[in-house]
């Protein structure tokens, strides 16, 4: 294990490996990723991995457009020898209430103005794009054909392989046991395999960021909560686009492997770090999905699991240096969208840490927005 590093990234999920990759791409040296378990073992490996550019705030539109375009060429950019399984079958958002329709029209106008080619479509157009869809009760839908979903495991590997090729070091099965500070500055980290002297630590520990912040006595304005997902047995493809609806409370995709993967927001989820399966979820999810995709009643659920959403007060991430501790950076609070935003996360954090000109509006995502009343409103969050 190295004794010193310029930058230590805590967490080998999609955000950590993306930050690591972009740091090296923009000229940083001696960057280390410390992962407690194995790559993508936390929320990344448990997420739905949907990719969409259909948002209601300009910030999210810009960040997600950057990310989606990155993923389109990621295999080449990262020089990956595998497949990240980017299925660009489009993302279809179903609208079932008048209020939702009004907001959706505003969102589409915003998206179009920012170069995102979302279309507002009729129920019959939606049916033509998603054969198994039950359009009963559907007022309209939006569709953007460049959205889709990815394989979170291989995408993480793609970043990690590039990071290592550029000289980065990844230490898996390695836990941070302490963070050393001196005079309000980071001086190093301790791990179960030794200590590393460094002046910069990036806390990208996903659901566990507070555990890391606890080591330096800092309370973050974030909390983690459980989110449930289930997956079915695989069948030949019948569903092209990824489906989602705020009013119906679900998202669902058919992966390239053939399985259907779906989730919904469940109330009363624990806000601790429990990621055990929820006994209530399968029935609730099944009731929802067989209404939207009636054919799925003849498909079998294979497995369910849960992961952590790291939530922020305004459902937007924090990309910032933690006030009061120089060299301690935070990239967290993605509120369920960390995977799809991960290229923007990497780009933003690299620019922030290396002091580069901002090409993305990460300046709006600092801690000060909470104290100065500049929180960001996103009307389109599950």
């Amino acid at each position: 294990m190295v004794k010193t590093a310029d930058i230590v990234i805590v967490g080998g999920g999609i955000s950590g490996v993306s930050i690591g990759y972009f740091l090296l791409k923009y000229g940083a040296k001696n960057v280390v990723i410390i992962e407690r378990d194995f790559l993508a073992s936390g929320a990344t490996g448990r997420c739905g991995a949907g990719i969409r550019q259909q948002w209601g705030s300009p910030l999210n539109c810009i960040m997600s457009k950057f990310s989606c375009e990155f993923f389109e060429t990621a295999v080449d950019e990262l020089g990956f020898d595998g497949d990240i399984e980017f299925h660009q079958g489009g993302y279809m958002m179903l609208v079932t209430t008048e209020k939702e329709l009004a907001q959706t029209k505003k969102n589409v106008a915003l998206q179009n103005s920012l170069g995102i080619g979302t279309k507002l479509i009729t129920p019959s157009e939606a049916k033509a794009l998603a054969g198994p869809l039950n359009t009963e009760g559907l007022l309209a839908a939006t569709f953007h054909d460049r959205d889709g979903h990815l394989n979170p495991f291989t995408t993480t590997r793609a970043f990690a392989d590039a990071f290592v090729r550029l000289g980065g070091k990844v230490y898996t099965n390695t836990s941070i046991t302490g963070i050393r500070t001196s005079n309000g500055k980071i001086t190093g980290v301790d791990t179960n395999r030794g200590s590393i002297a460094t002046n910069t630590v990036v806390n990208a520990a996903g659901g566990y960021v507070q555990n890391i912040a606890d080591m330096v006595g800092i309370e973050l304005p974030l909390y983690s909560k459980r989110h449930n997902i289930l997956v079915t047995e695989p069948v030949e493809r019948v569903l092209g686009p990824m489906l989602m609806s705020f009013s119906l409370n679900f998202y669902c995709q058919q992966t390239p492997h053939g399985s259907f993967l779906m989730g919904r927001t469940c109330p009363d989820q624990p806000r601790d770090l429990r990621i055990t399966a929820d006994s209530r979820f399968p029935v609730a999810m099944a009731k929802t999905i067989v209404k939207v995709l009636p054919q799925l009643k003849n498909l079998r659920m294979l497995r369910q699991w849960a992961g952590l959403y790291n939530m922020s007060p305004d459902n937007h991430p924090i990309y910032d240096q933690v006030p009061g501790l120089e060299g301690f950076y935070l990239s967290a609070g993605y509120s369920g969208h960390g995977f799809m935003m991960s290229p923007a996360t990497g780009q933003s954090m690299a620019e922030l840490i290396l002091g580069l000109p901002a090409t993305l509006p990460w300046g709006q995502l600092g801690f000060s927005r909470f104290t100065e009343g500049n929180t960001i409103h996103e009307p389109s969050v599950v």
Partner: protein
Amino acid sequence: MAIDEKSHILFTKPLHQTPMIYYHSTNTDINLKGDYMRISAHPILDFERGTQVSFTFDGVQVSAYTGETIAAALYAAGYRTLANSPVRHRPRGFFCAIGNCSSCMMVVNGNANVKTCIELVQDGMIVETQRGKGTL
């Protein structure tokens, strides 16, 4: 619609490109077919068969007895291949016969992935060889 054949494995080159050979499901052995295969004289056991029913397998009429699983009835009728495996399209028969594995999954009455080693036959069932992952 075809599923990407390589998607199951990400870093290893396929060991050998398996051609899409669908082994003939009607590949029966005359010596292993029909009621000859149903044991009549056994030193220990007396087999009480249920009532005779029939179902179709890939369009061919097969007779069976209630209380038999689909896989058992097909076996007695001389059929050994129940499915083509999901990626390599190799012929598959049952393996565990008690629902522990996935070797015997077939299309039954239009539903794919039915474990036929534990699913009992019913009169008029439509049973088909499962090719690959099956369809919804």
